[in-house]
C-alpha cells in the first residue's frame, strides 16, 4: 500500500501524532510541555500556509495576519463572553471572514501571484502598526482593552459550558494536540475531495482549469478562507500558550517564520511544514539563548540557502530520494528475475 501522498498516509501520521501526544508527558519536562502548546499554535499556522500555498497555489505572505486576527478575536471574545468555547469559534469565523473579504478584492480583481503576496504582507504590516497605536482606554471592544504595544491578556481555555473550570497546562496541551491532529486530518481530507482536486489543478494551471468550466476565483477564495480559519485556530492556541497577544503576531518576522517553516519542510506536503515548525522552533530557541549568532541572521541565511539550493524543501527531497532508491531496487530485482528465467530456459 502506498502511503506517501495519500489519505491513508495522513491517517497513519495522525496515529503517530496521537502516540506522541500520549507519550510526551512522560518524556518531556513540564516547562517544555507549556512551550509545546505555543509551538502547536505556530505549527497550525504553518499547516494553513502549506494548505493554501502548496495546494491552492495562492502565495499568501501575510498568513500571520489571520493568525493574529484569530488571536485577538479570541482574546477579545473570551473576555467579553467570560468563557473560551464560543470564543474559539468566533476567532475562526472572524479570521475566515476577513480573508474572504480580502479575497474578494484580490481574486476578483485578478491580481497576479506576486502582487497577491505583497498585498497580503502589507495587510499584515498595516495591522501591525494599527494595533501598536491602540494603547489607551479609548481603544476597546466591549470590556476588552486592546492595549497597544503591550497587547492584551488571553484567558486560558476552560471546560465547555463551565467558565470557572479552567484547563491545567497539561490538559491544554492535550486539547491543542487534538486540534492540531484534527486540523491536519481535515486538511489532508480536503485535498482529496473534489474541491481540493480543483484547487490543485488551479495551482498547476489556472487558465486550463477555468477553461474546463470552473470559476477559479471562487475556489481560490474558498481555500483562502478555509486556510485563514485554520490559521485563526492556530492563533487561538498560540495566545493561550503565551497567555497574551501582542501586535508582534502581525510583524514581518512572524510572517517570515511561517514562510521559512513551509519552505524548509517542503511546499507540496502537509506534514513537512508541521515537522519543520517543531524542529526549527527549538533550534531558534536554543540559538536565542546564546549571544554569538543573531536569530534573524540565522533565519535569513536558512531562507536564502533553501531558496537557492533546496527549493523543494526537506521532506519532498527525501521522499524523492527514497522513491528513486526503491525504483532502482525494483528494477534491479526485475532484471535479476529475467536473467534467472533466461538461465532456466536455456
Amino acid at each position: 500500500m502506498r502511503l506517501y501522498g495519500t489519505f491513508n498516509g495522513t491517517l497513519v501520521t495522525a496515529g503517530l501524532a496521537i502516540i506522541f501526544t500520549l507519550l510526551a508527558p512522560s518524556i518531556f519536562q513540564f516547562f517544555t510541555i507549556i512551550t509545546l502548546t505555543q509551538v502547536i499554535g505556530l505549527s497550525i499556522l504553518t499547516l494553513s500556509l502549506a494548505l493554501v500555498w502548496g495546494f491552492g497555489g495562492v502565495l499568501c505572505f501575510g498568513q500571520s495576519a489571520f493568525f493574529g486576527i484569530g488571536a485577538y478575536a479570541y482574546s477579545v471574545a473570551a473576555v467579553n463572553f467570560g468563557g473560551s468555547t464560543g470564543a474559539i469559534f468566533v476567532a475562526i469565523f472572524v479570521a475566515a471572514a476577513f480573508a474572504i473579504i480580502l479575497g474578494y478584492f484580490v481574486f476578483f480583481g485578478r491580481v497576479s501571484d506576486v502582487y497577491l503576496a505583497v498585498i497580503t504582507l502589507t495587510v499584515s504590516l498595516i495591522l501591525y502598526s494599527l494595533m501598536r497605536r491602540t494603547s489607551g482606554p479609548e481603544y476597546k471592544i466591549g470590556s476588552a482593552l486592546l492595549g497597544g504595544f503591550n497587547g492584551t491578556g488571553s484567558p486560558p481555555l476552560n471546560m465547555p459550558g463551565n467558565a470557572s473550570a479552567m484547563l491545567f497546562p497539561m490538559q491544554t496541551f492535550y486539547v491543542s494536540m487534538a486540534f492540531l491532529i484534527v486540523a491536519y486530518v481535515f486538511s489532508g481530507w480536503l485535498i482529496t475531495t473534489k474541491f481540493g482536486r480543483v484547487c490543485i489543478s488551479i495551482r498547476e494551471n489556472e487558465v486550463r482549469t477555468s477553461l474546463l468550466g470552473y470559476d477559479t476565483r471562487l475556489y481560490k477564495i474558498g481555500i483562502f478562507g478555509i486556510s485563514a480559519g485554520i490559521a485563526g485556530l492556530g492563533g487561538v492556541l498560540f495566545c493561550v500558550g503565551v497567555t497574551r497577544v501582542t501586535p508582534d503576531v502581525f510583524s514581518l518576522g512572524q510572517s517570515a517564520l511561517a514562510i521559512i517553516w513551509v519552505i524548509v519542510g517542503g511546499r507540496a506536503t502537509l506534514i513537512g511544514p508541521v515537522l519543520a515548525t517543531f524542529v526549527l522552533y527549538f533550534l531558534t530557541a536554543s540559538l536565542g539563548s546564546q549571544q554569538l549568532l543573531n536569530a534573524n541572521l540565522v533565519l535569513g541565511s536558512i531562507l536564502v540557502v533553501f531558496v537557492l539550493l533546496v527549493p523543494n524543501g526537506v521532506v519532498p527531497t527525501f521522499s524523492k530520494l527514497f522513491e528513486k532508491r526503491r525504483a532502482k531496487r525494483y528494477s534491479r530485482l526485475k532484471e535479476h528475475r529475467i536473467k534467472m528465467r533466461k538461465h532456466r530456459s536455456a
Partner: protein
Amino acid sequence: MDLFFSLALQIIYGVANLALISLGLAIVFGMMRVINLAHGEFLMLGGYTVVVATNNGVNIWFAMLVLAPLVVGIIGLIVERCLIQWLYGRMIDTLLATWGLSLLFIGIITSIFGASTTTVISPPLGVVKIGEYTSSGYELFLILVVIALLILVYLTLRLTSLGLVARATMQNADMAACLGISTSRIYMLTFSLGAAVSGLAGGLLAPMTGVLPNIGVIYIAKAFITVISGGVAILAGTTSASILLGGVNGVISYVTGPTFGEVALLFTAIILLRLMPTGITGRFFRKSQ
C-alpha cells in the same frame, strides 16, 4: 488661510515622502519586474551609513547626498551578482530570497550596532514660519530633493544612451538582447541604481527618524503599496500613486489622527487594485515611463 497652507504643505510632504521611499523599489520593479523585499533594509543601510559617517566627523550633507547612495549602491551590486542574477524569471523565488536577505541584513546590523537606536542626528535646517504655524525647513528641503530626483530620473531615461538602452530592455528584453545589448549588465546596473536611490532616501530620512536595525518595516508596507498601485511605469506610476495615496493618508490623518491614516491608505490601494489590477499606469498614462 495659514492653516490651509500649513496643511497643504504637510500633505505635499507626505506625498514627497512616499515618492522618496518608493522610487528605488519602483526602478527595480519597473525595469526588472523584481520585487525587492529587502528594500526597507537598503533604506536602513543608507541611514546607518549617514549616522556612522557623521559620528566620524564627515560633513552631514556629503554623507547624506554622496556616501549613502554610494555605499548602498555597491551593496546592491554585490547582492545582484551573488543572489538576484541566479533567480531571474523565478519571481516567487526572488521574493523569498530577498526576504531572507532582509532578515540577514537586520541580523548583521543588530550584531554590529545593537538593537537600540544609534545616536540620532538632528535635522540640519531650522524652522519655517507660515503665519502662526511653523514647519520644519528640512521637510521643505526633502520636497525639493524629491522633485529634483524625479526630474533627474526622467532626464536619465529620456536623454542619455543608458536610458535609451534601459527603456529598450524594459519594453522587450529578448529583442534588446538580439540587438546586442547585454541585458544582464543592464539589470545589474538597474538593481545597483535602485539600491543607490534607496540608500539616498534612507540617508535623507535618517535625521527625521533616527536609525534602528528594523526601521525598514516602517517604510516597506507603504513603499510596496505605492509601487503596486502605480504599476510598472517608474515615474508616472510612482508619482500618481504617491499623490493619490499620500493625499488620502494626509487628509484622513488630519481628520482622525494618524492611527487610521495608514489604514485608509491601504484601503484605498486595495479598492484601486480591484478596479485596476495592473495599477494606475496599467490603465492610464500607458505611454509614459
